[in-house]
């Protein structure tokens, strides 16, 4: 005598949207599960980058002069510009979530588009930075061919520079795809104050991508 059929009234009570999946009892449960899932995913992201940050820290401690000398090849102005661009995109992402929560469809579309735009600007700046490095032979590992170095071992810095900013760049691109998907769904009118969890959890992801850059910027561009 242990089970009871009680799902019928649970479904009847909820004024649920067509987006409630069959295995959840109500929207709030589905929303909470999605949020837990995204936070756990972000933990794995932190640990993924964490390995590179630890490696960077140890190698920096062993070769301080090489890292110091190598970082002068980076352009602080472009790095700062990208930092501002990404921070702005975090702001527009927050506004997107707010617009979805308050049923402002047009503003939602606008802010999502602005977020993609900022991410695009970031990638364009990164493209110019990368091509400048390629041109000068400032490449990772055995491909490093920069002429006229006075301090040896600078290839190690560029190994980490390209691995870390590269992995971060892949995350920015993935974020752009996810936000573009949100934009399509926003135009179709899927999101409302009843159902906005995709916007919210993509926002969580996007803030982490920004946060990682906030750490990468001083680590790479501002060594002293």
């Amino acid at each position, binding site marked *: 005598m242990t089970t009871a059929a009680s799902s019928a009234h649970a479904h009847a009570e909820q004024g649920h949207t067509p987006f409630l999946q069959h295995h959840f009892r109500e929207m709030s449960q589905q929303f909470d599960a999605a949020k837990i*899932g995204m936070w756990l995913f972000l933990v794995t992201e932190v640990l993924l980058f964490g390995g590179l940050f630890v490696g960077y820290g140890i190698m920096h401690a062993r070769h301080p002069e090489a890292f110091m000398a190598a970082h002068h090849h980076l352009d602080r102005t472009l790095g700062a510009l990208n930092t501002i661009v990404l921070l702005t995109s975090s702001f527009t992402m927050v506004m997107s979530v707010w617009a979805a929560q308050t049923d402002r469809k047009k503003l939602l579309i606008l802010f999502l588009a602005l977020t993609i735009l900022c991410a695009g600007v970031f990638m364009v700046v990164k493209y110019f930075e990368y091509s400048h490095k390629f041109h000068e032979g400032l490449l990772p590992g055995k491909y490093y061919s920069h002429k006229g170095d006075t301090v040896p071992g600078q290839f190690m810095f560029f190994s980490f520079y390209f691995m870390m900013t590269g992995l971060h760049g892949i995350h920015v691109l993935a974020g752009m795809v996810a936000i573009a998907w949100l934009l399509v769904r926003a135009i179709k009118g899927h999101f409302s104050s009843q159902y906005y969890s995709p916007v919210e959890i993509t926002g969580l992801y996007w803030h982490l991508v920004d946060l990682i850059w906030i750490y990468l910027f001083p680590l790479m561009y501002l060594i002293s």
Partner: protein
Amino acid sequence: MSEGVLTAGAGHAARHADYLEEPKGLWSWLTTVDHKRIGLMYMWSVLFFFLVGGIFALLIRLELLTPKQTIMDAETYNRVFTLHGAIMVFLVIIPAIPAALGNFALPLLLGAKDVAFPRLNLASLYIYWTGAAMAVATLALGGVDTGWTFYTPYSTTTGGGVSLMVLAAFVLGFSSIFTGVNFIATIHKLRAPGMGWFEMPLFCWGMYATAIIQILATPVLGITLLLIVMERVLGVGIFDPQLGGDPVLFQHFFWFYSHPAVYIMILPAMAVISEVIPTFSKKTIFGYKAIAFSSVAIALLGFLVWAHHMFVAGMSLFAGVIFSFLTFFIAVPSAIKVFNWIATMWRGSISLEAPMLHAISFLLIFTIGGLTGLFLAALSTDVHLHDTYFVVAHFHYVMAGSNLIALLAGMHYWWPKMYGRMYNRKLAAIASAIIFVGFNLTFLPQFVLGSRGMPRRYYNYLPQFQDLHVVSTVGSWVLAAGLFLTAAYLLASFRQPKGMPANPWGGRTLEWETTSPPTTHNFEGQPVLQHGPYDYRPEPAPVAVKELAH
């Protein structure tokens, strides 16, 4: 009301199509989001690779029957033991219980319709298949001979399929992470109404602890493996001493994942045992909270012991002492579990069905494996035993023996729930005895070999070691015979008619409340929990009255 009683009584008359029958067709299986079907596909995939890895194991043992060459040359031998290790660790033991049995049983035990993210679950299976295909494809590139640990600088400087194998392990990590994310979200949000954290079956606590490790450790392995690829492709220098890097750093990174990973292997095994023992002792589990919290304690402490793999790799004595102490400390929660299981069996009414026989094998084998771990945790003895057969025997007892015997216990326990059919129980009991004898015959002599100085991974050995090697090789044949017998009667069970009652073992957890096999949505409506998972009090009479009667 209890559907279980209804179904068992009413027979097949009012039966809905079960999840195996409906919908039909291969395509419906390949695109399913049903956790039970995904669990079964994981289970058969794992069993297939267990067969492959097992054949490699038999080849290794056959080669070691005599010193010098028996059936293969030294180069081949190196590739065979590497593939044996890599396949068994990444394709078999890590996904065995969580992805196969966990996927099948966890939502049922929680009274849920599915896991929280069913599509992510299916993605995890496809990622597993992709990683498996990549691992097998390394054979075409001449194989890998680094050992499953991929130690640098050897792994970054040799040819062959190292990059592909390492990427395969990287890809497989994602399937593990997806399972972990899914399980934590499911346990948090999809418990049946009335099921608080401490009304959950202990299997769920074990899966929760496993998922914590999968989420926290796997990404670190992922980036470490990517660094090996980067080292090979770009020569980044981080692990290469000639370029100012540090190969010992690789070992730290690697074991920061791979030691917690051995708890990804053992915690799910403990989770299965915590279900089987109360069901077949017909007694409430002893020390519920102690078992639940010791799982979480193992998951967290497991992150603080990785350097005990590296006592002789160049580490300060101070760090060695700390890691040695922490390693001793983690034996405490493991021992708590063993004592609680034995106390559960104490004065229970034990029925020696196959799952219970495997559970008792587990207790013995895990205890031997756990206690010999303490020899290796002690700094002074580890210097002698490091990289000998003692280590090989120890980790086969905890990783192979404990995990796979618990997998067998779980498969025998839930088989009637999975397929609605029963295997030949007498043969199952005989097979469990053969497996137990075969396993010990294979690996007990290796403790002696190791303590006498037989190094691991060696192709050749001194003549005085041959007697024990012969015993070990014969043991591997006995073990294989037991496993093939198991495969035979499990497959033969498909010729039995479907018709198991909902609750063939008299269990008290929720999966026994629904039909065997369950329908696609698991339960008719939402089950509401009305008694604890191990509540074996006779139902009509309160406990107090019953005790007076004695």
